[in-house]
């Protein structure tokens, strides 16, 4: 192109020169010859320009063809890459359909088969407590830092309708002396078939449907230890239960048959020792649950109960010995304040009744429960028998100072603990009053009045700090006084415990997921 422009300029310049020369009337013959030479030069340049233009046009299709092929090749490469990506995505989507799913979050570590026929989640509960007893009149309480609960909790569902739970306990779950050995044990091991929310069948070891406070998960109780009422409620037992929630939980029912355990006891051997069984049942209503009356939606009330019969040789169905290492009635500080005399046996019928209620509205929580445990007992040899009716009641409540909602299943802070960003979690103040009264007919034949108290009255105050959904810190103070009980000089429980009020300061650090 530059060559063409140069040639054209030269040609034009030459034309001007010729014109200038031609206009001169007085051109002599020498000038005419010069003009002729210039004309010939111009002709030659003209010819050269034509040749160059012709050559350029001849080369152009070859370059166009090469470019076109290159573009086509590139186009094919791009299409191939795009299609490969498409096929990879299809293959990944197909593989994902059959790949197991894994999740990890505040609710635990979960995994599921691709068809959801096998779903399992690993949860956990760790509670590190401290108990510090004060004003114990030089008789040392069991000051300690303890691993109160340490549980891996494995839950899951098989083929959509069969739930399971397996929970071993590695912490110091058994109240008692400091020297009590921690024996890993199975706390929950059950299968639950849920045909529908209103028809479910559970089999295995789990909490019988009697006490409201006891049914609340260990993760969410307001205080470190449950109240005196739970001393009369049956603990975890092995059995079968039919249960369900009707009308979206407005009515909840449960009826079951179990091996039968003593008051406040749990079945630690996972087996029954008598021919007779215990029937447990509970009906709980939340009549406003499905209404738009927000203030009453979380108001519930009901009644739980049990009925069983004990063989006369059964010594396991009641707290029957002294000495502190065997079952009895326990304080908030987990110290035995009542036990039957050695050799007393449970005989014939044992029934319980527990009217109960709770109310949750915004930051407010209230729970109340009353329990009657009516049991026939006999001296060994059946020389003397009695029908003893022990009672207990409690009322507890809490207020979430930071405004979050309180529920039966705990408090979820709006702002997790993150001081760098101004988050402090949720804070809840809690209080409780409880009493337990032993039937006066228990004394002196079936229980030693100089050792065992005939009644206990406990009040507690506490502060719960929910750092996030998984971490919680508690601090509480509990004061228990006794009616009757041991001499001041007693050195072993229950006498040593019931001889003076119990004051204990609790703390807890809890991890749950």
């Amino acid at each position: 192109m530059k060559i063409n422009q140069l040639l054209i300029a030269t040609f034009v310049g030459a034309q001007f020169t010729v014109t200038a020369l031609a206009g001169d009337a007085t051109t002599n013959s020498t000038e005419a010859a010069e003009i002729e030479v210039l004309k010939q030069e111009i002709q030659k340049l003209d010819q050269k320009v034509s040749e160059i233009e012709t050559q350029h046009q001849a080369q152009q299709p070859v370059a166009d063809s090469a470019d076109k092929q290159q573009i086509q090749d590139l186009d094919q490469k791009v299409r191939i890459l795009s299609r490969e990506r498409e096929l990879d995505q299809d293959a990944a989507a197909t593989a994902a359909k059959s790949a197991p799913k894994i999740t990890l979050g505040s609710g635990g570590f979960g995994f599921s088969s691709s068809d959801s026929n096998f779903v399992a989640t690993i949860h956990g509960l760790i509670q590190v407590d401290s108990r510090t007893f004060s004003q114990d009149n030089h008789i040392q309480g069991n000051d300690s830092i303890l691993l109160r609960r340490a549980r891996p909790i494995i839950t899951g569902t098989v083929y959509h309708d069969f739930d399971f739970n397996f929970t071993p306990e590695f912490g110091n779950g058994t109240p008692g002396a400091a020297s009590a050995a921690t024996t890993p044990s199975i706390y929950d091991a059950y299968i639950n078939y849920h045909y529908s929310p209103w028809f479910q069948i559970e089999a295995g070891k789990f909490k019988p449907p009697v006490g409201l406070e006891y049914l609340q998960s260990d993760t969410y109780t307001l205080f470190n230890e449950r109240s005196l009422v739970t001393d009369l409620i049956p603990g975890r037992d092995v059995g079968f239960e039919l249960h369900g929630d009707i009308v979206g939980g407005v009515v909840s029912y449960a009826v079951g048959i179990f091996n039968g355990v003593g008051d406040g006891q749990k079945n630690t051997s996972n087996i029954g020792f008598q021919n007779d069984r215990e029937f447990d049942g509970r009906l709980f209503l939340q009549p406003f649950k499905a209404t738009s009356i927000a203030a009453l939606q979380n108001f519930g009330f009901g009644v739980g109960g049990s009925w069983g019969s004990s063989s006369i040789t059964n010594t396991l169905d009641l707290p029957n010995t002294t000495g502190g290492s065997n079952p009895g009635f326990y304080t908030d500080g987990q110290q035995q304040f009542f036990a039957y005399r050695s050799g007393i046996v449970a005989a014939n019928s044992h029934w319980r009744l527990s009217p109960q209620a709770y109310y949750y509205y915004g930051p407010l929580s209230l729970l109340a429960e009353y329990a009657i445990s009516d049991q026939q007992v006999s001296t060994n040899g059946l020389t003397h028998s009695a029908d003893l009716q022990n009672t207990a009641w409690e009322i507890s409540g809490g207020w979430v100072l930071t405004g979050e909602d309180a529920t039966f299943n705990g408090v979820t802070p709006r702002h997790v603990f993150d001081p760098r960003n101004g988050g402090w979690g949720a804070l809840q103040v809690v209080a409780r009053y409880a009493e337990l009264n032993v039937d006066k007919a228990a004394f002196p034949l079936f229980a030693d009045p100089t050792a065992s108290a005939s009644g206990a009255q406990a009040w507690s105050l506490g502060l719960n700090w929910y750092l996030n959904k998984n971490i919680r810190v508690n601090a509480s103070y509990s004061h228990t006084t006794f009616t009757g009980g041991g001499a001041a000089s007693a050195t072993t429980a229950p006498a040593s415990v019931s001889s003076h009020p119990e004051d204990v300061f609790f703390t807890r650090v809890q991890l749950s997921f």
Partner: protein
Amino acid sequence: MKIFLKILLASSLAISASAKEIKLLNVSYDPTRELYTEYNAAFAKYWKAKSGDDVSISQSHGGSGKQAQSVIAGLEADVVTLALSYDIDAISQQAKLLPANWQSRLPNDSTPYTSTIVFLVRKGNPKGIKDWDDLVKKDVSVVVPNPKSSGGARWAYLAAYAYALETYGHDDAKAKDFITKLYKNVPILDSGARGSTITFAQRGIGDVLLAWENEAHLALKEFGDDKFEIVTPPLSILAEPPVAVVDKNAKRHGTTEVATAYLNYLYSDEGQEIAAKNFYRPRNQDIAAKYAANFTQLKLVTVDQEFGGWTKAQATHFADGGVFDQIYQP
């Protein structure tokens, strides 16, 4: 008359009340969607008229090898209509869902129709592809599915290999060299025949698609014969896609009778017409003659002739470490 009408009405009601609803699952290979859509409607009508029962047939389509593995893994097929007998043999041997002699239960070794492998090229055939040896030229890009998963791909591979054997005097080394060059020109391997058709026809990749004959015709129909044309090579392979009742599944579902009738009906005049209309070569010679214009005449060699049967062909070429694994590097 009134009594007669009453009896007739009562009988109709009785028949309606007793009419059963039967469900079948046909697990098939990739390109048979259109065939079985039409065939299933025809069979349902036939069965209703014959028995009064309503039958609905669900279809599953995919690469023949993959489909066979799905049935082995538990896909509850009542019948399988796959691309090659080896895949149904696998179901019999690995899952024991049907007897080893399944192929002898229906005419023509249980193959109611046949097919072959042809070339689908861009309109105008810009690369001048006429025969198998054009596929190994350096500037030709070939689209074909993966023989590890697709029955059609295995037929195509064997067709190319058979061409090489015929051309080079049954010299295996030269045939292997030929097939190596061919697969060097394959830029992408779909899992099934339908995927390859999408790659070639919709994504615009490649110069030639090695396709089931019916698939090539369907592509012309769907995308227009102004975009593609079919080139039938002088030699190709006789593809015999078989059908079989999956006995244990059918027995469990209570569908043995209907499943057997379903496959038998493929051999009926109506079944053979539907096959021919969908560009499958019917076994019925009269119907084949009627639809002769749909099918180009060519030399067809068989797997038995060239490779000693499917078991040997599978073991030699498509098993892990076989010839295909040796020659193809993605």
